[in-house]
């Protein structure tokens, strides 16, 4: 699963065609969903598949396919200096976090195998975190209205 997740992320960024990149991103998101299953979080995993792969990845795929333009696929290749800087920065951050994780006691922690059911999560969301849920609903509504407003086409020959 680690291979699928990391490989999909690499394909998403390095595939020549952007449509293959979107498919690679969907694969990476699916890999993360399986990792959620391994972490005893099936509800989050199903939510990840439904929202990320079912909505976000498909939204990106449809946008790329419907607005099929050559310039979307055309990319300016990064210079070797930029590429080296990117690899160095990414590798440095990865190594720093991984070294910190293995240097501390993280490897010694055991999984207790706890599985919070969706009832527990639902109770937490609907009681303690209910203001957050309300704000999130408003943010989602605002983002949908903003996306529709942005992508609206003003027609000059608007029939009355």
């Amino acid at each position, binding site marked *: 699963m680690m291979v699928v997740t990391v490989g999909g992320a690499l394909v*998403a960024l390095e595939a020549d065609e952007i449509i293959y990149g979107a498919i690679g991103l969907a694969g990476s998101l699916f890999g993360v969903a399986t990792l959620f299953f391994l*972490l005893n*979080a099936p509800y*989050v995993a199903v939510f990840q598949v439904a929202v990320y792969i079912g909505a976000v990845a498909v939204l990106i795929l449809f946008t790329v396919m419907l607005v099929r*333009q050559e310039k979307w696929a055309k990319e300016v290749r990064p210079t070797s200096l930029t590429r080296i800087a990117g690899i160095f920065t990414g590798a440095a*951050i990865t190594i720093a976090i991984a070294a910190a*994780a293995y240097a501390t006691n993280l490897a010694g922690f055991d*999984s207790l195998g*706890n599985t919070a059911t969706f009832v527990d999560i639902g109770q937490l*969301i609907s009681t303690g975190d209910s203001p957050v849920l309300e704000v999130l609903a408003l943010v989602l509504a605002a983002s949908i209205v903003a996306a529709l407003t942005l992508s609206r086409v003003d027609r000059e020959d608007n029939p009355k």
Partner: protein
Amino acid sequence: MNSLADFVLVSAILFGIGIYGLVTKRNALRLLFAVEIMINAANLNFVAFEQYAPFAAAAVDNPVGQTFVLFSIALAAAEAAVILAIVVVAYRLHQDVDVSELKTLEG
């Protein structure tokens, strides 16, 4: 692969790949991919740290990590929709999705 450090390692690799994409890519959609990968790395950490002792004992009755991830996924979906709309409008105005060419967005 079943210790907390392993999951943190996967998360760190994903985050590093996302950073690499943000540094090297200029295509707006690739930047969106990179940001989504980094958000997933953060989500993975939330769930992983919730499931392992000594954090897990409190997580049975109070699954804050999973709740955070649910909120994060919903926010990321909203963010992706808005960014895609912005990219479509930018393409309509400039005939390009290369962010280094979008001069009118500069501050």
